């Protein structure tokens, strides 16, 4: 692998490869917009007073915000790769460990953990570990997608 901006094909994907850390700044706007989109009205995600009453310092992000601060496309992008066109999400796994607040700076590290072929489709799987500015682990994520091959992305001339 190299750091040139290039599609990460199935053939390029090496199990065990670790991408450069990706840094993301969480904003209040993002937290609110996700809550709006999901129509989530639980007070701990919406109202600072209720969140403090529940023991938090401010409103908490809905845990699935991990899909933004630990987004595999963003991590590919920051490491000089890009998603190779048509790749379809197949499986997800999440472990929500600690609250994430507006103002947090989250650093995510992604690793290729598996690749396989099943029923004529090729798959690549990633694990992503995210920590806040205090070094505290906040979430772990597993993401597997149907992944294009070199022949699809780079057709022969």
């Amino acid at each position, binding site marked *: 692998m190299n750091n040139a*901006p290039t599609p990460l094909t199935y053939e390029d994907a090496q199990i065990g490869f670790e991408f450069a850390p990706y840094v993301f700044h969480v904003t209040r706007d*993002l937290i609110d*917009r*996700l809550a709006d*989109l*999901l*129509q*989530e009205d*639980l007070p*701990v995600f919406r109202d600072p007073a209720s969140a403090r009453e*529940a*023991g938090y310092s401010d409103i*908490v992000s*809905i*845990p*699935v915000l991990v*899909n*933004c601060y630990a*987004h595999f*496309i*963003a991590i590919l*992008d*920051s490491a000089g790769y*890009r*998603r190779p066109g*048509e790749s*379809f*999400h*197949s*499986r*997800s*796994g*999440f*472990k*929500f*460990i*600690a*609250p994430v607040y507006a103002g947090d700076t989250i650093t995510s590290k992604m690793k290729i953990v598996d690749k396989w072929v099943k029923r004529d489709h090729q798959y690549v799987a990633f694990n992503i570990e995210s920590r806040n500015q205090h070094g505290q682990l906040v979430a772990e994520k*597993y993401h597997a997608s149907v992944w294009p091959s070199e022949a699809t992305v780079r057709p022969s001339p």
Partner: protein
Amino acid sequence: MPQATSIDIKKGDSLPTLTRTITEEMVIAYEELFERIAARSDWKASFHADREAAAQTMYQEPIAQGVLTEAFFSVLISRWLPDPKGWIEGGTLTTKFIAPVWYGDTLTYHAEVSEVDSRSVRLNIWAEDQNTKKVIVGQASALL
């Protein structure tokens, strides 16, 4: 939606269902919220939000993002728990996407208690479309 109390929870219990219609506007909003932020250098609408791009895929029409459709399980579970802290700080969610979700599909999110003890609860989860076809299946857990 009524919240559970930990002593009430029993194996086989069903959570109150959650229903959401996945609209084109919702898919585009999610794209703007997550995909655009993520792909900083050369962002353009993906096949989820761009009908022309979708026409080139095996589905030929736009489908909703898996990360959008699965996110509603978080709403379903956090609302039901006695304390959402057990989801925010100790929840797990695994999902498998088994059928595409199209613009306008109405999904009903289900969960059933598969195991429970004094500290945690495990759930079998699934989402069905308006034709009762399962589109997502998986498991979740939370601390009590």
